């Protein structure tokens, strides 16, 4: 109890101390030497050592440069020592009074493997001691911290490449010659109670009543059995400690025949591989030095360190490699306890990552280790369910180092993202590991494999299953999954994400055919699938998937618009038309997707206007007939119609012939009649917006082709003669009338109409800053609106063919005023001279403008769909302004 109390006190004070130090970088730096000293000096309590190790790690974590090269070497050496030389017997039960002291005479129980057989080799975290000696505790700690320490070493050695490798014997605290054959010296110097004092130690320990493990110093209870004389009489069974007397050959043989033929750890192999075949023979005769032998043969993996002394780093790396390989071997045993099952998995993961780091630092290791890792891969894939978590580190290793030895990592990646992912997408840990793996290696996967391109539909299962968790990750990865071949497929996959989520719920472990639709007959089956899954519309996963699909679609389209070539982008048009009516009917999903697709369609056509000619047949099929109309689908339809009107012009695409334009015109003409003259009213409802855009488009197309102008005028005048009650929003009928009249009037002036109605890309491009354009636009919209309204009152005529010239004079005059207003706003005083010729009194006009401003803008918005309204107004404004500027003031007078 005393010991325990004492240890607690030390512990707590130390925690405070270290916590304080660690929080402060500067003082932390000052105290590194103290920490290092505690770590490397003998006789320090184990708590202090573990704590120092932890604190040191924290400090390094914050700042890699905080520890000097020498100190790092010293600590590395000490860690190597702990990793390698921990006791191989169990400590006595510290909580039990030793009533029968004689019992101790039997000696300590040997450490066992996870399956209960006696351990034959050095102690690892997978060796089970009934109770741990302090050095075993340190072994556990060292391994737990090994990876970050190795990373630190790699970091510093790459940074100071010239300085780090073998700068002679570092000024260590224990000045032992540290080549591999003198490990025993090292042991003895590090552990004052070496083998000779073993018996004494035994006695002293058994005489203690209640030994607390925690309170002992790390050196206090070292039972260096493996290093002590093999004639240990107290040992209950000599056969159980073959490490003592066996040669490495025997050992490897025995481990090989030990019902594990495919053990990845076989040191003789390493020896042979490195071509030192003479080694095993003499080695057999040096049975006593088995430990040093194994490290000697093993050190062939590090040829550079064969001669001369090794640095602490080098030693730690060798030790780490050995330790990890030992773990790989141990992991083949069958554990009895649940905790150990998990531990084995964790240890394998850790060991492979460690080997990965070692290989990155030293490329010469790769050829030797890759074979072991490949065998491990075979083992892991033979029982994926048990080793699923280990698969990723293995694949990572193969991916990182496969190239060096001309090993193709692609099959391994395929296994991971193919069958394994399909089976375990619902396992949150593994799913995360896979996503993380892809994200971390996205560059490498793109360069050296095609795995992401091939398996992204499978990856999306993870997203469909946990749509909230991985949005950001998929947004980052999405561009890597796109290329010219997968763009269409990706589009389908994203649109079907909610459907996939529903299907996963339905058949949790099987992929459905609906996830990968292709062009063609799939479309029919997709509708069937949607109807089958209709009862899952309310599922949370489905709802959230429907919310994130537009986000990802936006990423996809942005990537395509920015990165892809025209060919890839052009493939999207028919698919968009195909899928726009075929969506999983989740709430609001249609609306969002339609909005998104409309916007993206406009952008695509803006960038590549020739798409309109190229896919004319598809588009005409889409717009002909009423099947694609309806309250929910109208938005997209309107956009499509507008796009045609805007970009079907030889000004945008030289390939656009008169014939194309006429064909489009005829299609829209037919459509207009069909829409407004439905014999059964209300069969397909349509809004004023659609009619307005249709009329504008007809006028635009007609203005580019004189032959159909009369037909357009006829059509327009018929269209507006429809019954207002057919509209879904009858209140806008007067506006429609006005719009039709306006367009008819324009079309009646064949010379003016093309100028006003045709796209002029320069205008939109040179529209100046956004505020300027908006100002320009608003003012002109006001002028036009105002004049159209007030024309009759002012002149006594309604605008018709007869008084058209008068109307234009009015417009011209008004625009002069507008131009002044505009230039005033731009603080441009040069055009103020024509203000005297205003048609209207300035003040009156201003007043009216202010009153009507808000109303007009609102009306303009509901009148046209967003883009056509603005562009149209802008265009008229520009043209009229040009007219005004051309006409000189003298002519006016």
């Amino acid at each position, binding site marked *: 109890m005393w010991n325990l109390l004492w240890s*607690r006190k030390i512990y707590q004070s130390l925690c405070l101390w270290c916590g304080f130090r660690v929080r402060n970088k500067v003082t932390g730096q000052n105290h590194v030497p103290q920490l290092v000293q505690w770590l490397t000096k003998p006789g320090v309590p184990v708590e202090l050592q573990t*704590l120092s190790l932890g604190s040191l790690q924290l400090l390094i974590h914050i700042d890699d440069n905080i520890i000097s090269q020498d100190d790092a070497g010293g600590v590395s050496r000490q860690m190597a020592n702990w990793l390698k030389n921990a006791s191989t017997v169990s400590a006595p039960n510290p909580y039990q009074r030793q009533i029968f002291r004689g019992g101790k005479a039997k000696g300590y129980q040997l450490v066992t493997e996870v399956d209960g057989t006696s351990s034959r080799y050095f102690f690892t975290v997978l060796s089970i001691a009934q109770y741990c000696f302090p050095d075993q505790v340190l072994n556990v700690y060292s391994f737990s911290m090994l990876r970050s320490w190795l990373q630190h070493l790699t970091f510093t050695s790459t940074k100071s490449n010239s300085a780090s490798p073998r700068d002679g014997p570092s000024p260590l605290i224990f000045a032992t010659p540290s080549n591999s054959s003198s490990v025993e010296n090292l042991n003895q110097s590090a552990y004052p109670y070496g083998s000779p004092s073993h018996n004494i130690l035994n006695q002293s320990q058994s005489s203690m009543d209640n030994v607390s493990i925690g309170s002992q110093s790390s050196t206090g209870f070292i039972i260096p059995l493996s290093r002590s004389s093999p004639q240990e009489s107290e040992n209950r069974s000599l056969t159980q400690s073959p490490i003592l007397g066996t040669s490495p050959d025997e050992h490897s043989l025995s481990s090989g025949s030990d019902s594990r033929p495919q053990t990845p750890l076989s040191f003789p192999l390493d020896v042979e591989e490195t071509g030192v075949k003479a080694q095993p023979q003499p080695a057999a005769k040096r049975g006593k030095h088995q430990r040093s032998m194994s490290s000697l043969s093993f050190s062939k993996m590090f040829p550079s360190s064969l001669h001369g002394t090794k640095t602490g780093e080098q030693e730690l790396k060798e030790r780490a490699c050995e330790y990890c390989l030992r773990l790989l071997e141990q992991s083949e045993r069958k554990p009895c*306890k649940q*905790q150990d099952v998990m531990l084995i998995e964790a240890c394998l993961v850790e060991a492979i990552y460690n080997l990965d780091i070692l290989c990155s630092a030293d490329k010469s290791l790769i050829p030797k280790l890759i074979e072991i890792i490949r065998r491990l891969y075979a083992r892991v894939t033979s029982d994926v369910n048990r080793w699923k978590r280990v698969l990723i580190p293995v694949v990572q290793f193969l991916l990182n180092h496969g190239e060096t030895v001309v090993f193709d990592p692609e099959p391994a990646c395929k296994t991971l993202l193919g069958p394994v992912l399909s089976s375990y997408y619902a396992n949150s*840990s593994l799913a995360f590991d896979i996503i993380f793996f892809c994200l971390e290696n996205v560059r490498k996967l793109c360069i050296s494999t095609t795995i992401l391109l091939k398996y992204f539909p499978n990856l999306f299962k993870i997203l469909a299953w946990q749509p909230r968790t991985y949005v950001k990750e998929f947004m980052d990865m999405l561009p890597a999954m796109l290329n010219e071949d997968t763009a269409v497929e990706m589009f389908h996959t994203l649109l079907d994400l909610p459907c996939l989520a529903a299907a996963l719920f339905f058949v949790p472990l099987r992929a459905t055919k609906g996830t990968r639709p292709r062009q063609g007959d799939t479309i029919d089956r997709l509708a069937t699938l949607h109807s089958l899954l209709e009862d899952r519309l309310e599922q949370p996963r489905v709802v959230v998937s429907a919310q994130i699909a537009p986000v990802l679609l936006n990423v996809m389209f942005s990537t395509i618009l920015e990165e892809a070539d025209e060919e890839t982008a052009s493939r999207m048009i028919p698919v968009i038309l195909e899928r726009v009516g075929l969506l999983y009917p989740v709430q609001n999903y249609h609306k969002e997707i339609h909005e998104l697709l409309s916007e993206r369609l406009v952008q695509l056509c803006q960038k590549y206007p020739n798409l309109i000619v190229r896919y004319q047949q598809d588009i005409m099929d889409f717009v002909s007939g009423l099947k694609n109309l309806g309250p929910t689908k109208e938005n997209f339809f309107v956009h499509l119609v507008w796009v045609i009107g805007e970009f079907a012009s030889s000004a945008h695409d030289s390939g656009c012939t008169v014939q194309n334009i006429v064909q489009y015109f005829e299609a829209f003409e037919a459509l207009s009649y069909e829409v407004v003259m439905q014999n059964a009213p209300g069969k397909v409802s349509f809004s004023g917006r659609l009619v307005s855009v249709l009329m504008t488009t007809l006028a635009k197309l007609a203005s580019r082709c004189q032959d159909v102008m009369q037909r357009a005028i006829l059509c327009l005048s018929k269209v507006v003669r429809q019954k207002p009650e057919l509209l879904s929003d009858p209140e806008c009928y007067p506006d429609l009338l006005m719009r039709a009249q306006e367009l008819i009037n324009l079309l009646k002036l064949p010379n003016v109409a093309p100028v006003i109605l045709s796209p002029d890309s320069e205008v939109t491009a040179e529209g100046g800053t956004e505020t300027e354009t908006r100002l320009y636009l608003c003012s002109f919209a006001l002028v036009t609106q105002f004049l159209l309204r007030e024309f009759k009152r002012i002149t006594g005529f309604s605008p018709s063919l007869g008084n058209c010239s008068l109307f234009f004079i009015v417009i011209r005059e008004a625009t002069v005023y507008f131009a002044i207003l505009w230039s005033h706003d731009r603080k441009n005083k040069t055009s103020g001279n024509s203000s005297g010729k205003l048609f209207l009194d300035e003040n009156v006009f201003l007043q009216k403008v202010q009153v009507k401003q808000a109303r007009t803008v609102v009306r303009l918005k509901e009148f046209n769909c967003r883009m056509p309204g603005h562009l149209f107004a802008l265009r008229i404004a520009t043209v009229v302004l040009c007219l005004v500027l051309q006409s000189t003031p003298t002519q006016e007078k």
Partner: protein
Amino acid sequence: MVYAFLIHTLVPGPCRVLYSSSFVHEPSLDGVVTEDERCTRKEQLLQVAHRVQSEYSFRYVASGNESQEDLSGLSSTDELLSNLKTGVFRLSPGNPYKVERVVLWKGLANSGFTLVCEKDENRVVAENILDLVIRHLQEYCQVILQPSEAILKVDKVATIIHQFLPNGQLLFMNNRYLRQVEKELEQVINLKRE
């Protein structure tokens, strides 16, 4: 290396962090300490807790409607532990930490247990340690069904965390080593009672 451990509430509504312990001191990059570091850290942890809360509620809804009252019938630790929902997610750099981190959480009823790890942490062992921590928190404080115990018995919570996450270090513990740690824990907690 674990950055922090949290216990917090899970039910929808304001999220409360009931216990937090961060192991790594993250220095400010510019070297200038102007704001209250402790405050910043707490806010960051609260953000993490918020995210866990929303992940949990989604998981809860998505898993169907196993109603809350079932849990009161579950008294044994094992039964409770087997019902824990679990998840992992990534904190992208800058949100809320400067570096990328990974969050592992487990939760049930109104208690969420969260480990904020560095991104290259061994997640298999982290999951295991989190399990162990929860098991012992439940054994000593019954924290799963009564989250307020995490505030009332904070000394026990701190001891448990200290035993299983010394300095934020995840340890590879085999069954015997674990037993030894558990015994030590038992001794320390008993010692406190005396």
